[in-house]
């Protein structure tokens, strides 16, 4: 079998050295009743050709996003990743290396993480960032947990503009930790309700911008209100490209910023693996979850990087850890860093401007025939489309994937007529024209 280097001869020799009669002797501690002598009821091994064939068949049953006009967003965005990114992450030394616990032979990984942390801190306008989390939604939950540790208060206020999956994830984790989660009603422009809900028992307020309806908000007022009450402001961003155009969370007074980094360097991949960004103010760093990479020197005075502040983590603090996390999203963070290095400040701003421009073109094409619910947007807007799920299904006949019905994210919000539509640099004018024509025709019915 192609992945198993031992030959029958090797095995015989090695059993001899071990002093075991046969391989079963090495499994003698397994209770007799649990020993399985027959093969499991699964297919036998097979060659690459066969495996490729089966997987290609499965892949062919799916309609890739790029196979026609495509407008889904709602937490994951289709962007063009330059060819060199995927090429570099497939180098053996990056793809097949382990967590950098032995820094002398992992400076490649560690330096990349340090660059990543610096990039994330700068994008979010905050002081420090960690070496990534699983994704934006778990980063959001972790931020809420962190606010409990920092403020020693139990209540978190989740804005009505927060992505329902993020809210649900936070609720699941917080329920376990005994926190009270106040999930405000879904609302397109959700600011005022958040400020009203803050009180002396609030540990944090969680606000997303651009929010799940695409609305861009200046959260400075919310920051003031939160701080006046002794609470933390957590800002969530699900479209990382927006950092290239919009005011940063740090600029607006955020204490913690979390984001989904998938848009930079990573494909859609049907929902994972993605990469969570987590940044905060300097004074909060010891309460931060996740891995941290720091600068130091070696025995010869040369600069190097190491994982640091590990005493927060599970392998040392065990039950007193800031989190139970063990892995970060290493390779996805590497892809993020490479893509962002290729872009640079200039490129990211251009890319962000292009995304916004496409969305303006989209809005322009739809204005008049469709009600647009989003007053200010980056690259995603919410439309009024009665029975939006139905509309999306119907437009499939024209090979158009029209967007994400809000009801798919939260069927109980009473927003069955809201459709979330995103445009990126991969969206063409023809795509937009096709969508506009199809929607116009469909909604007239």
């Amino acid at each position, binding site marked *: 079998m192609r992945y198993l280097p031992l030959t029958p001869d090797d095995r015989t020799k090695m059993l001899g050295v071990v002093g075991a009669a046969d391989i079963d002797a090495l499994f003698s501690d397994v209770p007799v009743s649990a020993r399985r002598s027959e093969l499991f009821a699964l297919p036998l091994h097979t060659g690459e050709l066969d495996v490729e064939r089966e997987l290609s068949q499965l892949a062919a049953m799916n309609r890739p996003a790029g196979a026609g006009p495509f407008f889904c967003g709602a937490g994951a965005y289709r962007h063009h990743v330059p060819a060199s990114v995927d090429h570099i992450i497939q180098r053996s030394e990056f793809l097949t290396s382990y967590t950098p616990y032995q820094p002398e032979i992992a400076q490649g990984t560690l330096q990349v993480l340090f660059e990543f942390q610096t990039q994330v801190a700068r994008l979010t306008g905050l002081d420090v960032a960690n070496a990534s989390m699983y994704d934006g939604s778990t980063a959001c939950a972790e931020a809420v947990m962190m606010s409990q540790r920092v403020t020693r208060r139990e209540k978190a206020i989740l804005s009505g503009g927060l992505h329902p999956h993020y809210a649900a994830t936070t609720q699941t984790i917080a329920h376990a930790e005994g926190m009270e989660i106040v999930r405000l009603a879904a609302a397109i422009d959700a600011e005022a309700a958040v400020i009203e809900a803050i009180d002396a028992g609030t540990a944090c307020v969680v606000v997303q911008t651009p929010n799940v309806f695409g609305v861009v908000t200046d959260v400075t007022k919310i920051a003031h209100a939160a701080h006046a009450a002794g609470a933390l402001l957590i800002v969530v961003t699900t479209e990382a490209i927006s950092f290239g155009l919009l005011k940063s969370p740090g600029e607006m007074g955020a204490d913690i910023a979390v984001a989904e980094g998938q848009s930079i360097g990573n494909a859609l991949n049907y929902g994972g693996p993605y990469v969570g960004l987590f940044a905060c103010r300097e004074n909060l760093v*010891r309460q931060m979850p996740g891995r941290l990479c720091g600068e130091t020197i070696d025995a010869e005075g040369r600069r190097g990087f190491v994982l*640091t502040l*590990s*005493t927060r983590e599970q392998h*040392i*603090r065990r039950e*007193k850890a800031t989190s139970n996390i063990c892995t970060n999203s290493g390779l996805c963070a590497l892809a993020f860093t490479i893509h962002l290095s290729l872009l640079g400040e200039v490129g990211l701003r251009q890319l962000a401007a292009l995304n916004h421009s496409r969305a303006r073109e989209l809005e322009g094409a739809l204005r008049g025939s469709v009600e647009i619910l989003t007053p200010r947007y980056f690259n995603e807007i919410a439309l009024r489309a009665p029975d939006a799920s139905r509309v999306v299904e119907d437009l499939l006949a024209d090979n158009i994937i029209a967007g994400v019905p809000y009801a798919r994210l939260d069927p109980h919000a009473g927003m069955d007529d809201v459709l979330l539509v995103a445009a990126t640099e991969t969206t063409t004018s023809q795509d937009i024209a096709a969508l506009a024509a199809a929607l116009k025709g469909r909604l007239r019915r």
Partner: protein
Amino acid sequence: MRFTKDHEWVEVDGDVATVGITAYAAEQLGDVVFVETPNVGKSVKAGDGFAVVESVKAASDVYAPVSGEVIEANGALGEAPDTVNAQPEAAGWFAKVKLADPAEVDALMDRPAYEAYLQTL
């Protein structure tokens, strides 16, 4: 100076006890990188967890050797945690506690007893 089995020391002046960790403990820990001192105003009972001392590879709980109220914490440790390694039984003190029951101190080991105890470890 008096000592506990968990390697904390106590130095009493009137009804105020200064508390820290012993040279033995500091040596065992290795390089101290951070000390989480207790909040001023906190009430402690002897034996309660009251501070945490971190080295690169470990985080160790420090237990209050006496009961009382924390009236001062050693702020200098924030900038210079290495003081704990350099002068564990002097400038590396953690906190000052206003004693609830001065008699508790008498029950602790004196230096010869502590040194004898160290021999048994």
